[in-house]
């Protein structure tokens, strides 16, 4: 190495030493060191919050999974016991078909010429039926159903809490990452000198303050949790709704909301219970007898509140759509049903209601498109109570349209006929001829509702072999109101030649029919419509 080089090096070393000394004497330096330590302490505090959130998330995740498994068990057991009840009852119902309890079967006593006292068989049957126990299944079933509901609701509540804890943990991690930037800037300020030191320090402090404020804001956000008392009350409310005790169900939902005023499930449950309390036959006949009034207004308010609290709740917009349709607010009904469909487009019930709303709006093309969607969703299924209920619900909607918007009645009737033809082919399991039979006739006689029973005589004569015969019963619960088509009042048969069916069925209704109607279809083509008298309006 040459001398000049040595001189240069010595000079550089002296300058560096001077620079270091100046840097160490900088009055900002102790402040920077303290700030750095304070940021580290802040980071430790944030780590505590993050660890707490993470621990809570892990504990809640475990509980959520365990309760989900328990809820699955409770639902399976509840369904098993509920399925046992009709099976046990069927054993009692089968007794009258067994010798010697069958009054129509040949009797040994009469063969032996031994006279039997009058009513002996009926007495024996009563004794035998009493001897067949139900093993407490009838009592046990509702208890198990409530337990299943409770666990399902608990699982949902825990899942919400768990998701929030998860979000919280992630937010704290993000804040810690931001704080790391602040620590880097302040640490950088500690080792550099000159004007950059002040800038780095200021920026670091600003980022640190931002991180601290952000952490405080996150910390103050509430963690949703639903008290057990609210869940218990809502579960019992759901069970009572299923049992048809709607007013008691509303009281229980009230209790649930007292325990937790932000419980969306209780709001949507109460909306449904209020709706069913105001329209007590809806679950059986789809009859909306109180489309307006305080109870319905409260139900809609509850549904809207549930929707605010839980935007993913599909029941609430469906309730709003249904009630808006029934009291003639088609725009609101359409908005609500579109919202419900956006949440789950795989529910045919929603598409059918949309189709009816579109008919009432005077948009037949959209109505047909919605109906097509609904039919596509049930294609591939086999005929069941569920598919019958879908069809009857849609026919009731269309009957409502005929009543509320007479101008749209032709469209409503066309769609109704289309659905009946489709359902007939679906139920009978074969395609229908494209037109009604060339010969033969059908008639409905003695159609009436009296003494709690619907009676009619359906006759047909001279029909070609393989004719599809469909009979659909309607009832009118309100004087001059719309018709409704209960799912149970339907007959699908393949007939030929001449024949008759004497129909005599009990109709247990709160709002007793003021009139009854039967539509008869041959090969899916509407052939006959007859109306008959009912009783004085009870609603």
């Amino acid at each position, binding site marked *: 190495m040459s001398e000049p080089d040595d001189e240069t090096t010595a000079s550089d070393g002296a300058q560096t030493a001077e620079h270091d000394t100046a840097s160490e004497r900088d009055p900002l*330096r*102790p402040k920077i*060191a*303290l700030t*750095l*330590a*304070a940021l*580290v*302490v802040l980071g*430790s*505090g944030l*780590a*505590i919050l993050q*660890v*707490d959130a993470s*621990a809570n998330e*892990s*504990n809640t*995740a*475990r*509980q959520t*999974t*365990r309760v989900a*498994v*328990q809820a*699955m*068990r409770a639902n*399976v*057991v509840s369904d*098993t*016991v509920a*399925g*046992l009840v009709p*099976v*046990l009852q069927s*054993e*009692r119902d089968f*007794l009258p078909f*067994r*010798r*010697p*309890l069958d009054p129509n079967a040949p009797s*040994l*006593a009469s*063969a*032996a*010429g*031994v006279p*039997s006292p009058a009513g002996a068989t009926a007495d*024996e049957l009563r*004794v*035998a*039926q009493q*001897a*067949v*126990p*139900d*093993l*407490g*299944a009838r009592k046990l079933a509702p208890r198990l159903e409530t337990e299943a509901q409770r666990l399902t609701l608990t699982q949902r509540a825990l899942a919400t809490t768990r998701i929030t804890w998860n979000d919280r943990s992630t937010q704290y991690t993000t804040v810690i990452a931001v704080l790391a930037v602040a620590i880097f800037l302040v640490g950088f300020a500690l080792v550099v000198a000159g004007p950059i030191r002040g800038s780095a320090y200021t920026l670091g402090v600003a980022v640190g303050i931002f991180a601290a404020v952000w952490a405080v804001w996150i910390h103050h956000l509430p963690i949703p949790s639903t008290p057990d008392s609210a869940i218990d009350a809502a579960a019992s409310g759901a069970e009572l709704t299923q049992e048809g005790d709607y007013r008691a169900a509303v009281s229980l939902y009230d209790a649930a909301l007292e325990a937790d005023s932000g419980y969306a499930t209780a709001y949507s449950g109460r909306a449904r219970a209020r709706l069913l309390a105001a329209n007590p036959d809806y679950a059986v006949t789809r009859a909306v007898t109180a489309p307006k009034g305080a109870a319905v207004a409260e139900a809609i308010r509850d549904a809207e509140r549930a929707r605010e609290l839980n935007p993913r709740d599909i029941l609430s917009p469906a309730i709003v759509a249904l009630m808006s349709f029934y009291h003639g607010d088609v725009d609101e009904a359409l908005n609500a049903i579109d919202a419900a469909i956006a949440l789950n487009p795989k529910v045919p019930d929603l598409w059918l209601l949309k189709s009816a709303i579109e008919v009432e709006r005077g948009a037949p093309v959209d109505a047909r498109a919605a109906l097509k969607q609904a039919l596509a969703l049930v294609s591939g299924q086999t005929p069941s109570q569920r598919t019958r209920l879908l069809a009857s619900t849609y026919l009731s909607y269309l009957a409502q349209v005929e009543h509320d918007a007479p101008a749209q009645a032709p469209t409503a009737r066309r769609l109704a006929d289309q659905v009946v033809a489709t359902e007939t082919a679906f139920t009978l399991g074969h395609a229908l001829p494209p037109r009604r039979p060339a010969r033969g006739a059908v008639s409905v006689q003695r159609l009436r509702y009296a003494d709690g029973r619907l009676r009619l005589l359906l006759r047909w004569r001279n029909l070609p072999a393989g004719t599809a015969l469909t009979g659909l019963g309607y009832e009118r619960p309100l004087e001059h109101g719309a018709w409704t088509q209960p799912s149970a009042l339907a007959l699908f048969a393949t007939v030929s030649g001449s024949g008759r069916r004497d129909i005599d069925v009990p109709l247990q209704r709160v709002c007793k029919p003021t009139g009854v109607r039967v539509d008869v279809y041959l090969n899916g083509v509407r052939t006959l419509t007859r109306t008959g008298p009912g009783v004085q309006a009870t609603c």
Partner: protein
Amino acid sequence: MPVSRSDDAGAVTRARWVVAFLIGLATVTAAGFGWRAAQIGSTAAYDDRQSISETVTVEQQSVSRAVTVASQAREYVRYRADYAVAATLDREADRLAAAGAGRFAAVSRGEATALRQGATRRAAQAGVFGPFSIDTDLLTPTVAPRPFDYRAQARALAAQTATALDSPASLDPDHWADAAAHIRVRIRHLTRWAFLAVLAVLLYTIAEVSLPRRLAYAAVGFGVVLYLAGLVGGLSTAFF
């Protein structure tokens, strides 16, 4: 004793080294607590998995029992219905015998006996009255129907499952859940004790940069107290 300037500078340097050492010690302690928290955290995760796994097994067994008992209940009700019909046949036989139609009475009685025999055999084969063997009293019909208690059946099935050769060891998902929750409480404690150690670092830093000696000593003293509190608290309550 007069103290020279170089002695004073040497004392300051030594003090700074001590403080730097204390800062390092507190930092390593906090890191050690963090390491331990992470380590026991994985045990908590294991306990969570055990708890869930055992919950699934317990609930599966419960469902299996419920389905079996429901099936037995169904068979038992058929059995009782058959017995009810048999009792009616017996009464018919009594009436026929009283009216002098002995041969007809024998038909009714024979039918009742056969019905009871068949009902008993079918119920026994379905396990309604407990384990079935080829020749057992269970196959002998009784005059009055045998009782059936679904709770007792469920208990018996639970006992059978628990004592079977392939039965899982005693299942206690709540125990695992409690263990996991307890570990997480320890983790929380550890983070708080570590926080005390980090606070001590802040105080040591104050001492490091303070010019007034009194403030520096006070900061170091307080820092040492905090550090020891964190160390002793962490080691005694949560570390092990």
